[in-house]
Each structure stands twice: as structure tokens, then as C-alpha cells.
């Protein structure tokens, strides 16, 4: 028996898992419409490669990854693209975001696809490429693209591969049912991950409240003994990546670091199955297991559902009683977020849709003052002092918040759960984190603005200087000329120019007598210009120049001709009068 470790804090909320595992995984079928948000995960949004009206087959790429931390999007079923537009998506803000909408034809026709014959013959980079192009993102929590996570930092070897089957959140059973029904698939996926990472050991960790899953995994692992199944006492949040690592290895991920820094990679069991499907069958990630549960649905159960299926579709299948449901949560009751529009689609990270009744999860009563009882500090899995953080968050003391390690908070909600004063602590931390990040961004921006301002100031100063220098140079030159002129005894050139101008003016003023002559000379110049332009035009015709240039030349010649006729007629009029 492997030694398991304990982590600080943690709570034991009511599990409520039994409701949704009474029956097995059920297919949710193909809905009338699929809605695929272009950014399903953290990182950059994908770039659509289809246009409205295109017909797509199941599994066809509809949006490409844009950037490093981004994942490809595939059509989960066949049909026609009916729009690329803003739709409600599952996000705590409730804001809409650009989505590709597919009107399904219910044929569910696959695009040709094929897996690799034997993954053992492929090298890691080939398989990573495959995983990346299958659009696989972490299916447990944040939805980080799996290929990026597996790639890790170059030159760093992986000591321990941890497969996370903990699923510590109440209500959710998506991983549980997956482990019960598809234990062999999981282990096959794990074998592929092992082939990629070449870890020294592989541990599959899960809590002891899933005896059926443990039995299924043990049985499957009996034939392929490359994975050690480790069970440990149930406690929330043991499924948090950092907590699971501590439970299984006794090590802590350094603050601000990644598990890779201590030679560990964590993957969810669902992700392992997705990797298997992608590598062995060439199937991209287009469906997942989602738990639909809560007292407001008649038959809580797990669905195998196409990504992009509206939540409403699943809720209808499970028999939602809308009048009993006041909030809809994506994820579990501890860390999930409320969805305000049931038309929002299932995405890669939707492990659960929770439709609780008000009696089941009552809205929090108004917050009472903090009495610093310290229950939150006892419950905090990161060993923070939530009551102090709360105090500082109220006062917006950002420096103190950072000094008390606000950014090590994993927002698991254990502190709020135990709080006897019903203070929404996590909301305080979320808001404060966002404020601090905003402040940092603002500061970076103002630094940039300052630099640009200063650069501009120097540039302007330099320009001024140059102008000044030029003026000085001109002045010096003028003085020199005057000097020269006076020295040679000739007349001053400037004075001469002034004299000339004066003479000209006098001549003009002298009367119209000189006018015909001037008009005649102007006519001459125009004729010369026209001649030149025509020559140039002929030249370019002959040498076969660009049509545009020819056209421009023709236009200018035309203009000159017009001017000439005008001038001629004016001259003749003048002559007549």
C-alpha cells in the first residue's frame, strides 16, 4: 500500500452523488442546433475556417487554434453553418461571445478519420501533434489545452504522471461513471500518455467514496499493471491539482510554479479517454460526459453529449421542472458558476449542470460581521488566513493582500462554506484579485504612456533643435553672402532680387499693355507642355506600359488640352475686345 499524505484544511460537504449514478451513461442525441463558442478555454479564441452556409461533416475542423495556448474546434455533428455570431455562452459574466452555430441535419455523417496503427511506433511529438489537432483541452477544470500541458518545458523529465479521478465536488459524477463504465479505455489513454511522457511512475488517484469505480479500475489494471490505483479518504478539495499532488507525493507545487517544476504532470481521467479516442481512432474531441443533477430535475443522470448542445436540451431530457429551479450552475456547488441563460451550450469543461431547488441550495442569508472565529483558516487548503484577507479586501489594501498571499487562493470555496457569518469570502477574493491585476495592467499601461510621452518630448525637442540649427545656418550663410557682396563691391543679391520684384510689380501696374504678350507666352508654355505629354503618351503606348499609367497620362493630356482651348479662346476674346 502506498503512503498517502494529508493536506491542510478541507471540508466535508454533503456529497449528493448517489442521485445521478442510478443509471449508466445515456446518449443525449443530436440536438437541432449546436453552438460552439470560439473560445472554449483559457487562452486565445480560435479562428473560424468556415463561412455561413457551408456544409460541415462531423469531426471536420471549423476553427483553428490561434496562438500557443489555444485549441482547435471541430463540428460535433454534420449540418450547415447557420451563423457565426454572438450567443450566450457559459461564463460567470453572462456576456455573449462569438460562436459558430451549426443547424444539424440529423444525419450525423463523419468526415473521414483514421487513428494511428500503433502509437508505440510514433514518437512523442507526432502524438502531441495529433492531440493538439484533435482540440483536446483539460476536461476537469480550467480547460487548458492538453498538448501544451504535456509538452511541458523542454529538457525537463517527468517523474510522476498523475491521473486525476478524484472528483471531489459534491453532485458531480461524470468522472465516476466514466471510471465505472470505461475503465479499460482510461487505462489505454493513460498508456498513451505514458508513452509520450515516459514517467517513472503513474498514479491514478481517487477518493474512497467511489467503490464501484475503484473496483472497475482495479480489475482493468490487473491485466495492464502500468498504473497504480491509489485511494485516499474523501475530503474536499482533494481533487484540486495542487492538493492531489500533495496527497499522492507529499510534495507541494512551489508558489507561482507549475507541477512540471517538480517533475509531475496531472491529467484528468476524461482527458485520458479523449487522448485515446484521438490517437487510436482519430476522433477529435466533440463530445463529453456531463452530469445533469439537482432536485429540480426529475431523473438526475449522466449524458454523453455533443459539445455545443444547448443546456436546455439536456435539462429537458432529464426532466427539468423550471418552476422549482432558481439557479443553474455549471460545475459543482463549490466552484461552479451560475449560468443565466439555459441556451448556453455545453463546452469542453462542462462536467456538470446543477439545477438545485431553493430548498436544496438556499440563497445565502445576508452576511453578518466577521468574528474572526478562524474556521476559514482551519478549512483553507492553501493554509491562508481568509479572515485577514477578507479584512484587507474590504479595505482594498492591495499590498497587504499580496503580502498575505492572496494569489495562492484556489477559490475552492471551503472558507465560505464554513463561515458562520455567511460572508461571500470567495467573491471578495475574486474581486480583489481582478482589481490587483487591473491595477498592474493600468500601471504597465501608464508606464508605457509615460515612455511614449517622453519619447515624443525628446523627438519634439530634437526637431526644434534641428530647425534652430538650420535657421542659424541659413542666417550665417546670408550674412556671409552679404559680406562677400560688399567685399566685391557688387550689389547685394537680395537687394537685387527686391529690385527685380519691384520692377515687375511696377510693370504690372503700368497697365494692360503688356498683357497680351504675357498671355501669348502662357499659351506657348501650355502648347509645349501638351506636346511633351503627347510624346510621353505615345512612348508609353509603344512600350506597352501599365494600363493605369497610360490612363493617368491620357487624363493629364486631356486636361492640358482643355486648358489650352480655354486659354486660346480667352486670348482671342481679349484680342477681339
Amino acid at each position: 500500500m502506498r503512503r498517502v499524505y494529508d493536506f491542510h484544511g478541507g471540508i466535508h460537504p454533503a456529497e449528493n452523488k448517489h442521485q445521478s449514478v442510478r443509471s449508466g451513461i445515456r446518449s443525449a442525441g443530436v440536438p437541432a442546433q449546436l453552438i460552439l463558442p470560439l473560445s472554449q478555454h483559457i487562452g486565445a479564441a480560435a479562428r473560424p475556417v468556415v463561412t455561413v452556409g457551408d456544409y460541415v461533416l462531423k469531426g471536420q475542423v471549423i476553427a483553428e487554434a490561434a496562438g500557443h495556448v489555444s485549441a482547435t474546434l471541430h463540428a460535433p455533428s454534420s449540418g450547415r453553418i447557420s451563423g457565426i455570431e454572438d450567443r450566450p455562452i457559459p461564463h460567470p459574466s453572462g456576456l455573449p461571445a462569438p460562436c459558430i452555430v451549426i443547424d444539424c441535419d440529423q444525419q450525423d455523417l463523419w468526415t473521414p478519420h483514421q487513428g494511428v496503427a500503433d502509437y508505440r511506433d510514433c514518437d512523442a511529438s507526432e502524438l502531441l501533434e495529433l492531440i493538439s489537432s484533435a482540440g483536446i483541452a483539460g476536461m476537469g477544470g480550467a480547460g487548458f489545452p492538453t498538448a501544451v500541458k504535456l509538452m511541458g518545458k523542454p529538457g525537463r523529465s517527468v517523474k510522476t504522471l498523475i491521473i486525476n479521478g478524484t472528483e471531489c465536488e459534491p453532485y458531480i459524477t461524470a468522472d465516476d461513471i466514466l471510471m465505472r463504465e470505461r475503465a479499460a479505455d482510461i487505462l489505454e489513454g493513460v498508456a498513451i500518455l505514458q508513452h509520450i511522457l515516459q514517467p517513472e511512475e503513474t498514479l491514478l488517484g481517487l477518493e474512497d467514496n467511489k467503490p464501484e469505480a475503484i473496483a472497475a479500475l482495479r480489475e482493468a489494471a490487473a491485466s495492464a499493471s502500468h498504473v497504480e490505483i491509489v485511494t485516499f479518504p474523501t475530503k474536499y478539495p482533494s481533487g484540486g491539482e495542487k492538493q492531489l499532488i500533495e496527497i499522492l507525493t507529499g510534495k507541494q507545487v512551489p508558489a507561482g510554479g507549475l507541477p512540471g517544476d517538480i517533475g509531475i504532470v496531472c491529467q484528468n481521467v476524461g482527458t485520458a479517454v479523449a487522448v485515446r479516442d484521438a490517437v487510436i481512432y482519430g476522433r477529435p474531441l466533440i463530445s463529453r460526459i456531463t452530469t445533469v443533477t439537482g432536485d429540480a430535475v426529475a431523473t438526475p443522470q449522466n449524458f454523453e453529449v455533443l459539445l455545443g448542445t444547448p443546456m436546455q436540451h439536456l435539462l429537458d431530457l432529464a426532466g427539468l421542472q423550471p418552476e422549482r429551479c432558481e439557479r443553474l450552475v455549471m460545475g459543482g456547488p463549490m466552484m461552479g458558476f451560475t449560468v443565466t441563460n439555459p441556451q448556453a451550450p455545453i463546452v469542453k469543461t462542462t462536467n456538470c449542470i446543477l439545477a438545485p431547488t431553493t430548498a436544496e441550495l438556499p440563497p445565502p442569508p445576508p452576511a453578518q460581521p466577521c468574528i474572526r472565529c478562524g474556521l476559514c483558516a482551519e478549512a483553507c487548503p492553501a493554509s491562508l488566513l481568509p479572515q485577514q484577507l477578507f479584512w484587507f479586501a474590504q479595505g482594498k489594501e492591495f499590498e497587504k493582500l499580496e503580502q498575505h498571499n492572496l494569489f495562492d487562493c484556489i477559490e475552492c470555496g471551503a472558507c465560505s462554506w464554513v463561515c458562520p457569518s455567511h460572508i461571500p469570502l470567495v467573491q471578495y477574493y475574486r474581486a480583489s484579485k481582478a482589481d490587483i491585476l487591473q491595477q498592474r495592467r493600468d500601471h504597465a499601461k501608464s508606464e508605457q504612456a509615460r515612455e511614449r510621452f517622453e519619447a515624443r518630448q525628446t523627438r519634439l525637442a530634437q526637431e526644434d533643435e534641428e530647425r534652430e540649427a538650420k535657421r542659424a545656418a541659413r542666417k550665417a550663410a546670408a550674412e556671409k553672402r552679404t559680406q562677400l557682396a560688399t567685399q566685391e563691391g557688387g550689389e547685394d543679391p537680395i537687394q537685387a532680387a527686391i529690385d527685380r520684384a519691384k520692377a515687375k510689380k511696377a510693370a504690372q501696374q503700368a497697365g494692360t499693355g503688356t498683357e497680351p504678350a504675357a498671355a501669348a507666352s502662357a499659351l506657348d508654355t501650355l502648347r509645349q507642355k501638351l506636346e511633351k505629354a503627347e510624346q510621353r503618351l505615345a512612348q508609353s503606348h509603344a512600350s506597352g506600359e501599365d494600363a493605369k499609367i497610360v490612363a493617368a497620362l491620357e487624363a493629364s493630356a486631356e486636361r492640358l488640352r482643355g486648358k489650352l482651348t480655354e486659354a486660346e479662346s480667352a486670348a482671342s476674346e481679349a484680342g477681339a475686345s
Partner: protein
Amino acid sequence: MMAWVTDYPLLAALLALVGLGAPFGALLGFAAVRFRAEGNPIADEINAILPQTQCGQCGFPGCRPYAEAIAGGEAINKCPPGGEATIQALADLLDVEAPPLDAEHGEEKVKTVAYIREDECIGCTKCIQACPVDAILGAAKQMHTVIASECTGCDLCVEPCPVDCIDMLPLEESLQTWHWQLPAPRSNNLEIIATDSATAERAA
């Protein structure tokens, strides 16, 4: 010695003071030269707090000059873009009372970004010359555009535009910028307390 001191107390006191003053003065003088601060560090610190919009609403040509003016004793409440937060930070730095924002210089507004309606732009370059951070791109007789990420929302380009084609648009909330707000502070209103669930919002 003592006898001399008691005989001439005044002289002795004077001598003692001079004796103390001279070395300490020398020490201070040495320290002033040895540890002389380069530039004006307090103005730098103030400048780091100012929002660097370079809008000139304070009456100074940019943030740096205002920072220097504050270091020289100017009031700290003349920066509308920075608003209360900046005043508070300055008050903390200078260890003075934080006054409310001086309304004469404008009021705190939501952050904006300049936007040029490009088909109306005549390419006069007037806004380019007005922009304190070179955030407008364009050339004479060519359409201009604002580099939104560099724009500080200072408004200075709006006035010079002869065809009024520059709008100051408030920054829109997006998925990237959205975040949870602090829960509403407990209201003092007696009626609300019993029923209000401070954090619950209802979306239709």
C-alpha cells in the same frame, strides 16, 4: 578650566556651541555632498503614481510637469483621470490629508478610448500633432487611425479635429475584462437588511 568656565559663563557657552556646531555642520555638509540624491526622487515617485494620460487637465503640460509641481507644493487634487485613487495614493506618499477632487479641472469619468470615424477623416494631421503619446497613425491627406492600445483617453485630439470625426468611446466590458465585483457593502437602511441578499443579482 572650571574656574574659567564659571568666570565667563557666556563665553564658555558660546564656545561650547561653536565647538559642537562646527563639526556637525561639517558632517552635514559632507553628507550633503556624499549622499546627494540624483534628480528629484520625490517627483519621480509622484510621477509613477500619476496615470500618465498626459491630458493636461491639471493645467500642466503633461504628467511629469505636474509631478514636479506637486513636489514643489502644488495641490494634489487636480488629476481627474486618476481620480480618488490617485489622490489617495499621493496623499499616502506625501503623508497629507486626501482632499476631494478639484472639480475645476474636471470630474472622474469612465475610461475612454479615442476612435476616428475613418470615412469622415480628411487627413489633416491636426490630431496627430495633438496626441501626447503618438497613438495616432496617419499622414497628410491619408486617413488617420488610433492605436487603441496606446491611447490614454486624454481627449486632446478631439478639439483640434476640424471635421469632428473623433469620438471618445467608453471601454467596453468584454469576457477578458469582466470580473466579479466586491459584494455590495451592507446597507444601513433598516428595511433592506432583513431581505437583501447582498450578492444575489437577478438576470431576467
